[in-house]
């Protein structure tokens, strides 16, 4: 399974919770202790066991385009290695 991670722009997040519903791995939770500058409780990426697959479903669901998704992919063979 591919590995991934996300970054959430807390300043733009409005705490709608839709990303938490969209995530099949359950690695997005809503903050309960720190409201954002706008006064919403933002979504947080909590993935201690590295379960995020980088599927980007959370980003598709987010109405406020807060989520950037990264995935680990095999790097292309480097040119100098290929030359040997």
């Amino acid at each position, binding site marked *: 399974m591919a590995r991934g991670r996300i970054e959430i722009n807390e300043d733009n997040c409005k705490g709608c919770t839709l990303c938490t519903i969209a995530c099949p791995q359950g690695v997005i939770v809503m903050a309960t202790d720190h409201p954002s500058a706008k006064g919403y409780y933002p979504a947080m990426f909590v993935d201690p066991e590295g379960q995020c697959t980088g599927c980007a479903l959370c980003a598709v669901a987010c*109405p*406020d385009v807060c989520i950037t998704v990264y995935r680990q992919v095999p790097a292309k063979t480097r040119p100098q*290695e290929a030359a040997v």
Partner: protein
Amino acid sequence: MMVAETVLEEQVVYARPASLRDVPTHYCPGCTHGVAHRLVAEVLDELGIRERTIGVSPVGCAVFAYKYFNTDGCEAAHGRAPAMATGIKRVRPDMVVFTYQGDGDLAAIGTGEIIHAATRGELFTTIFINNAIYGMTGGQMAPTTLPGQYTSSSPAGRDVETAGFPIRMAEVIAGLPGAAYVARRSLHNVKEIMKAKKAIRTAFKVQLAGLGFSMVELLSACPTNWSMSPPEAMRWIEEAMVPYYPLGDFKVAEGVEALLKER
């Protein structure tokens, strides 16, 4: 000799599209106007047409859409976006022109404009947001409000005896000769959002191919005026709106079929 080992490298698989400015929107939490904006922006990026696109914003909650899309844009009087888009496209046929309109805008005060623009087969694209309510002005009944739906101007629920039945705009527009592609999609979950994007892409391709007027109606949530949480609002779209407003393609004119088959 070196053996190439599998090195993992981190790649960005999703980031904000260039066609959407990096500014916070004024939309309420969970309002799917934001999703609709993002889908249009992704399509403009993917088709490589951002630099030659002009958006026409409505009156309604999306009144500031021209500030959010990283394209040229202007603002029309209530319901008049199709008339403005007609003028722009006729003067600058090299540009890609779209209107972005709510149901109060397109299906009430602007019904005449959209019907005649579609009938004339004007070569622009309309993104029509059906949230079954007037959002901006405080949740009054719209022509699209469902039978029995509570709104601030139908506190006992829409009474079809006096207010009539909601209007299915996609079907109405599909019946007009100049409309080349008319579809209805929904924004209530990830799967439907992905289908909506595909329809939006087809609509813009229809314009690029000069095949006629194109419109995508999007069932959209207004959690604030529906008095629901965002997840409740998504469920309400699925359970109450979709049965009345079926999803699908209502007009696929000659020449559009081939575009539908493309990815």
